[in-house]
């Protein structure tokens, strides 16, 4: 990466920093949802802990909520930053500048990581005094789980931004829908065996399943299964290539159809 690329990437980061600085609701929203989720699931966990202690052992519910949210936050942060360009009709200004597509994607990933950390770290820290659960006790594997889910989020985002380029703001609802489509198959709160056969088959193709299976093994049985994590990284590599391909094809199609100048509904 040369100096010019760094300058262009930092220009976009500066743009998103200015945007967040100018709008306190946007800033508040970043930390608001993860914290609210953590509180709701924290109390749910407290309630279950007396009736069914095995359900909440080791703070599994709160940990699962926080780790799952890193996928959702990374995806939403990435896609919303891109949508900001569409909402403000600024996309053409970017595409006629020397900014390259990969620099745009890298900028979106960087801002997504920053926003995800701003959202997740306070929620994870608050869970310690509120409910006595610290996801940080998972140690280094937590980084592996977190990165895997963030990569899944980015892979989805690459495809979604491509679809937004091609179909305009009419496809905006995909931004919210896609992560929730994965959730039932991802075995966030229950083991893989709970799912019916056909859903288990689908789940085996999801990186998220391996992350949560690995996390459950670590929290409930103290068993560290690195194979599950590597499997998740491998699948994410494939998703990443697919997401990038969708983005590139959609950009090519948008350029062919003249959708970059007037990117709206």
């Amino acid at each position: 990466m040369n100096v010019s690329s760094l300058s262009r990437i930092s220009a976009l980061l500066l743009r998103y920093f200015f945007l967040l600085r100018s709008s306190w609701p946007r800033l508040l929203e970043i930390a608001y949802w993860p914290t609210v989720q953590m509180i709701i699931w924290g109390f749910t966990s407290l309630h279950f802990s007396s009736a069914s202690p095995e359900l909440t052992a080791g703070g599994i519910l709160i940990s699962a909520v926080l780790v799952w949210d890193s996928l959702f936050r990374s995806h939403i942060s990435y896609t919303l930053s891109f949508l900001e360009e569409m909402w403000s009709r600024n996309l053409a200004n970017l595409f006629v500048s020397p900014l390259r597509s990969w620099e745009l994607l890298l900028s979106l990933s960087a801002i997504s990581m920053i926003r995800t950390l701003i959202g997740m770290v306070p929620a994870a820290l608050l869970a310690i005094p509120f409910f006595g659960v610290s996801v940080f006790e998972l140690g280094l594997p937590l980084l592996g789980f977190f990165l895997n889910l963030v990569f899944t989020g980015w892979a989805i985002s690459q495809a979604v931004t491509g679809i937004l380029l091609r179909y305009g703001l009419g496809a905006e609802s995909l931004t919210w829908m896609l992560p929730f489509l994965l959730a039932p198959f991802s075995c966030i709160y229950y083991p893989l065996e709970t799912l019916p056969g056909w859903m288990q088959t689908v789940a085996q193709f999801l990186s998220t399943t391996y992350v949560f299976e690995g996390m459950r093994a670590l929290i409930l049985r103290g068993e560290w299964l690195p194979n599950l994590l590597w499997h998740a990284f491998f699948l994410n590599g494939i998703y990443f290539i697919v997401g990038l391909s969708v983005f590139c094809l959609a950009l090519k199609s948008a350029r062919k159809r003249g959708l970059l100048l007037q990117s709206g509904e």
Partner: protein
Amino acid sequence: MTRSDTILQVEGLSKCFKEKWAVEDLTFSLPSGSILGLLGGNGAGKTTTLSMLLGLLEPSSGSIHLFGKNFVKNRHAVLGRMNFCSPYVDLPQRLTVEENLKVFAKLYGVKNAKSRISRLITDFRLHELMKQPIRRLSSGQKTRVSLAKALINKPDFLLLDEPTASLSPDVAKWIREQLLEYREQTGATILFASHDMREVELLCDQVLLMSHGRLIEKGSPLELIKKHEKESLEDVFLSLNENGGGQ
């Protein structure tokens, strides 16, 4: 590069959308330091042509050479020497004028960005607007900021799509003066799409008249007026359109 060098060479440029030709077989060249007016009514193909020259739209056929390079293949190598302003494109609305100029200066890798921004603030009388978010500006003020953004990297080639549309005559006149001054100072080449014939007559050295995606006439405003024995460029345009616009 001398003033007579060709900065832009367009040959057989065409764009077809679902069997409808938006631009058909457009060929022209643009000498460095000139101001070219791309004239035509609604649907003439001006914006489509500009989009292709900006790399926002892929031509169906034909070639574009900018600064001696094949534009389709070397887009990123030349985009840093160009810039544009269009009513179809806004700047980030929540960012202030100052923040926008800072972001675009960084995006274009402008050296001494502070002094460049300061110069543009003076040229476009933006002092009092610097802390204002774009969304709070009037359309005239927005145009001034968009033009400041378009000049942030001191482009050698500036593309303007109806930059004075919806502006009052005094502001439009002032904008034209700024553009002429910029050309005088830098020797930049300007391509100006408009359907304001009077404006084009005042500003442009050369004119391309388009109708239904085709080039129907080209020359200097004076040449065209003389050739068609009319009093103004508008009369030339109307007479050509009445005669079928080259169809």
